[in-house]
């Protein structure tokens, strides 16, 4: 969607599980956020431009990382706690130790309820700690955190290069209410309605081909696949 991209929040999601990444991506998109997801803490740091502790405003540092951190504005990092190699906690520490990114709010997710772990993360600077499964309602708590950094970044930009629209952009961001995805279809939480919803989605898929995203890869074929799949891709 190319509309008002600057006023959309950009979230960096980190999780080694494809399943969890898929879920958190959808949850964030449903909350009107732009999402980039990576499968490890080190890839997250790379994305931010922090590989090997070298910040990307050093022109000699990374020949393979074309990303200038000032162009990749990240309003929030949401990471799984339990990951091989760099844990979510390690990532949190690295972010908070970096002068360029310590103001990015970090949220930790975990499927285990370990109070000592939770307080350790919060003490280290995590804004929130979510227990999985994460729900849409949890993500509502994130808006104020992301808003803070967005306004702060905009103020910094104003100071660096005073531009015409400054007042306009600040108020636009400040006006962001709750979930913007008010394209919520009226799905009643009753088993009886389930098939109708799924079927209606199918119909919309068939009739609005230009809006349809392509089917994703990575689904193994070693089991008989229902015809449902063949139908949607045939269009």
């Amino acid at each position: 969607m190319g509309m008002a991209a600057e006023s959309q929040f950009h979230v960096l999601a980190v999780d080694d599980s494809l399943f969890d990444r898929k879920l958190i991506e959808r949850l964030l998109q449903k909350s009107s956020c732009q999402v980039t997801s990576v499968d490890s803490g080190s890839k997250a740091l790379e994305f931010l431009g922090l590989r090997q502790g070298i910040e990307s405003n050093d022109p000699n540092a990374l020949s393979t990382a074309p990303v200038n951190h000032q162009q990749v504005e990240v309003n929030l990092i949401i990471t799984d706690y339990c990951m091989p190699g760099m844990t979510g906690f390690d990532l949190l520490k690295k972010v908070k130790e970096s002068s360029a990114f310590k103001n990015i709010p970090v949220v930790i997710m975990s499927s285990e309820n370990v109070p000592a772990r939770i307080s350790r993360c919060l003490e280290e600077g995590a804004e929130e700690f979510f227990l999985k499964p994460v729900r849409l309602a949890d993500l509502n708590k994130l808006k104020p955190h992301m808003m803070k950094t967005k306004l702060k970044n905009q103020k910094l930009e104003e100071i660096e290069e005073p531009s015409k629209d400054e007042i306009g952009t600040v108020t636009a961001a400040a006006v962001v209410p709750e979930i913007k995805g008010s394209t919520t279809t009226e799905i009643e939480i009753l088993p009886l309605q389930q098939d109708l919803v799924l079927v209606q989605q199918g119909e919309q898929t068939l009739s609005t081909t230009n809006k349809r995203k392509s089917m994703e890869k990575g689904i193994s074929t070693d089991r008989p696949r229902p015809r449902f799949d063949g139908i949607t891709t045939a269009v």
Partner: protein
Amino acid sequence: MLGLGVDRLQADINRLLASLFHQGVLDEHFLQLQQLQDETSPNFVYDVINIYFDESEKLLRNLRLLLMDREFSDYKKIGLHLNQLVGSSSSIGARRVRNVCVAFRSASELSNRPGCLRGLEVAEHEYHYLKNMMHELFQVLSFILLLHMRIKLGYGRQ
């Protein structure tokens, strides 16, 4: 004529879903997945369930390999796999799979090998039951979709 066919299939789906909820195989998280599907992500539920199956099968296979090893002692690794299974099963709404994995995890925390073996068998059983039910669900859904498509394309009365 086709309309009647769709009604019957929808009734089948209702019955199947109601039964799965009644048995505790599925819970409300499954319904919440539906809320995340929309026209910008019309295949979300189908995709995410397939990813769940792929990942869970790998995890269960690894668990079996670990426990079948005569020299096995890495209960921590078992715990990590189970955390993933518990987490993803909760998110999908696969309540029974989740619960048996929690019990399995408790056995691993006590380094109880026979307990773990039992836990694995039960987890595999519950997982396959769920998978078969989901396939049945998707099959019926695909028929409904097919019928709807035929109606739209004018093969039957609107």
